[in-house]
């Protein structure tokens, strides 16, 4: 910094006006379809994700009503099957992954101190693909033709022979779509994190949430393609008579391998960003640097790697060779090590501090409790003999809800309460927040803990009812009532969201006195995110700044077009000023073209060809440089 002169920056209102003009998203109904700013798209992902969470939750409520008494006939068997399948698909594909991506898309560029993602239009495209997929899936449910084969859709049950009708076709299409959306988000999150950090934010100064998103994105890049291959093969088996998964002709187990090679990392794709949120929330609410930054980063990366070596533990009962089973048992238990490192670092962070027990921290503490229980049952089912006993029973249902809800949904709500002021400019109501936490926490444990017991008693999962003499009625009734309590907990958070929108306490830029850059701009951030790109000299920039010194910033980025600063990968040295694309309708058109290609395939073989041609047209329109001649003239002069 010394070689630069310390010239004071004068805010010119003319520049601010220009920036506002240039980065503005077009208003109005038709304008909505052209937005590309990361704050716009991120918010859409988050809102849509929560809508699907509510839908998936309603489906769960229907299931719990059906199961509340033995031999109940509230739901007919086939509809029950459709509903639990849709619940799984919704929660895994339409809620958990997209909402984590949504938070990443909204928060990460702010944490990095940049003005947008690397590929804003790709971002918008990813959102539309997601939206189309989700709407198509629920359309199928309302038409009574949703898949009824479970969210993992094992053949031969999922083959055309045993699942006639269009349900599984919808499944295969929608899965492929969600993969495309997730891959697009992952690739551009990686590019953004690599190339758009504020000057001085070397890799070892990145907030842990950014690290977590980076690991998540890499996992998506390697986990999703095999499933995409699998889902396309499944669609081909059903429509054009290929033999990939047909018993005797091909191999149903090939699907299981492809599915779980994706499916296990999927769990970590959901969990890892949540771990990042926890580290940052803890830093803020203890007001001290997190203990063991390097250890936390390394264990995130380790979880990312080990996550790829575990998939076969979902297939113990398919008759694996012994050696393979042993290997995967060992690998599955090994993942407890980096998870343990995380927990101990967090405990050390909390040690001896007087944390501020606001709602976000409560959700994090709730996570500790629940996730440890989920981890313990996880270590149990990682061993082959135990797993063989409880496979496909409610013990498993208890286990995976403990890790999914405890590991991802609790931190997610923590993150919601934490970042809500940044998104809206207002704090959420604390009292209601605490009420919602306790309702959710108690409701959750009362709902899912007894399921361990039901599972040990032998109650199989994925059944629409059970017989009276088995004596499971009372516990199931208790579970169902508790699920109501849990629903009330979530509901009070949703009420809080709406209530605080208008009536919440104004937040200011940095209500929690947090350390990372997203709190260094106004709440909600302007369309251009930062008036001046900050320069980072330490791991906790905002804490550093507030020691009464002047804030170092970047000047000289043009305000009359969408420009941002690109920096080097390791040290974040400024490299050049990149011009970003503005609002455009092409991402929507491309998403529709891809939709016609994949969706139409359910009806006729010609549609992929049509989709291919339309996609090409949309892509050419997307990438064709506008104002070709002017740009050429300008730059060749």
């Amino acid at each position, binding site marked *: 910094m010394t070689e630069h002169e310390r010239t*004071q920056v004068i805010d010119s209102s003319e520049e601010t006006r220009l920036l506002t003009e240039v980065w503005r998203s077009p208003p109005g109904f038709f304008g909505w379809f052209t937005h590309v700013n990361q704050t716009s798209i991120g918010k859409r992902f988050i809102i849509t994700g929560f809508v699907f969470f509510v839908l998936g939750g309603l489906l769960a409520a229907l299931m719990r009503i059906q199961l509340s008494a033995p031999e109940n006939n509230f739901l007919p068997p086939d509809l029950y099957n459709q509903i639990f399948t849709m619940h799984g698909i919704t929660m895994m594909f339409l809620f958990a992954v997209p909402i984590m991506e949504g938070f990443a898309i909204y928060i990460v560029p702010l944490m990095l101190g940049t003005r947008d993602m690397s590929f804003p239009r790709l971002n918008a495209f990813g959102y539309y693909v997601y939206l189309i997929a989700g709407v198509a899936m629920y359309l199928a449910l309302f038409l009574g033709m949703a898949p009824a084969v479970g969210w993992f859709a094992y053949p031969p049950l999922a083959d055309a022979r045993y699942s006639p009708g269009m349900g599984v076709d919808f499944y295969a299409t929608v899965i492929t779509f969600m993969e495309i959306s997730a891959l697009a988000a992952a690739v551009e999150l990686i590019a953004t994190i690599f190339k758009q950090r504020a000057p001085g934010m070397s890799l070892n100064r990145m907030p842990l949430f950014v690290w977590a998103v980076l690991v998540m994105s890499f996992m998506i*890049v390697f986990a999703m393609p095999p499933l995409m291959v699998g889902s396309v093969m499944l669609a*081909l088996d059903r429509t054009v008579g290929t033999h*990939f998964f047909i018993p005797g002709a091909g191999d149903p187990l090939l699907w299981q391998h492809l599915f779980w090679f994706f499916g296990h990392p999927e769990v970590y794709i959901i969990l890892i960003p949540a771990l990042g949120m926890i580290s940052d929330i803890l830093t803020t609410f203890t007001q001290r640097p997190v203990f063991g930054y390097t250890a936390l980063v390394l264990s995130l990366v380790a979880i990312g790697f080990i996550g790829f070596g575990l998939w076969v533990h979902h297939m113990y009962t398919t008759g694996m060779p012994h050696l393979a089973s042993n290997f995967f048992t060992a690998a599955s238990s090994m993942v407890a090590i980096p998870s343990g490192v995380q927990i101990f670092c967090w405990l050390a962070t909390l040690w001896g501090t007087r944390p501020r027990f606001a709602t976000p921290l409560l959700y994090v503490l709730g996570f500790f409790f629940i996730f440890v229980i989920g981890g313990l049952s996880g270590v149990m089912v990682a061993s082959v003999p135990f797993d063989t006993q409880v496979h496909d029973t409610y013990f498993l249902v208890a286990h995976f809800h403990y890790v999914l809800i405890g590991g991802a949904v609790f931190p997610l709500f923590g993150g919601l309460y934490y970042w809500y002021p940044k998104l809206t400019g207002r704090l959420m109501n604390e009292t209601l927040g605490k009420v919602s936490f306790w309702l959710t926490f108690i409701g959750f444990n009362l709902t899912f803990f007894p399921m361990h017991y039901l599972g040990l008693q032998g109650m199989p999962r994925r059944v629409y009812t059970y017989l009276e003499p088995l004596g499971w009625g009372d516990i199931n009734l208790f579970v169902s009532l508790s699920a109501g309590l849990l629903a009330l907990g979530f509901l009070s958070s949703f009420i809080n969201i709406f209530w605080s929108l208008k009536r919440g306490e104004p937040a200011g830029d940095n209500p929690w006195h947090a350390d990372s850059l997203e709190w260094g701009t106004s709440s909600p951030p302007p369309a251009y995110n930062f008036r001046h790109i900050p320069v980072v000299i330490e791991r906790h920039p905002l804490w550093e700044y507030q020691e009464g010194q002047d804030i170092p910033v970047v000047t000289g980025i043009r305000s009359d077009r969408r420009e941002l600063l690109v920096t080097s990968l390791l040290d974040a040295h400024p490299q050049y000023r990149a011009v970003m694309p503005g609002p455009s309708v092409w991402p929507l058109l491309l998403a529709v073209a891809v939709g016609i290609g994949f969706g139409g395939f359910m009806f006729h073989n010609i549609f992929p060809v049509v989709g291919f041609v339309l996609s090409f047209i949309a892509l050419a329109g997307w990438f064709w440089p506008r104002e070709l001649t002017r740009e050429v003239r300008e730059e060749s002069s």
Partner: protein
Amino acid sequence: MNRFSAIDASKLPSYAFSHCVPIWWGIIGLIVVEATVFASLVISFFYLQTNFPTWPPDGTQPPELLKPTLATLVLLASAIPMYWADSSIKEGKTFPLKVGPLISIALALAFLIMKVIEYRDIGFRWDTHAYGSVVWAIVGFHSAHVLALILKTSVVTTLAWQNYFNSKRRIGVTVNGLYWYFVVIIWIPLYMTIYWASHLLQS
């Protein structure tokens, strides 16, 4: 709190090359994703093979090697004019960029036509047996890539004829080239799998 200017970005360039540019990373990401897709297909090929006493299954001849090898050479050759164009534009020479890609496109088209002729009477279909399914899937998927390559490159070539690219503005050419090399190179393991592995496993 006052701000002071620690970095004046107006002195920085407004363009950059290769790995400095986010889109370069975007294309690398795309390539990694697609390589994983192809790897999954190849693994599926060998996984399915373990279910059959002979592979290709009884009644299907192993593929002949001469014509596919020729086609492979044609595809490999198509990368050369692309490379020529790519490296010339770095020095500001625009002429190679106008003709190089055209030669590449012609070679890629020749490759596609050879594939069509080969598979028109290959003697098995995707619904004949699992071998047919996976072979048609691999070849079909790769051919779709070659087709996309041709379309994409024709857009780049059109822009080149309009003198859009120069020694500074050439990231579009770089990433198009990268993708071209990828589709060409990934064909080698696919070719080895479909043709050589089928042959060796048969005998």
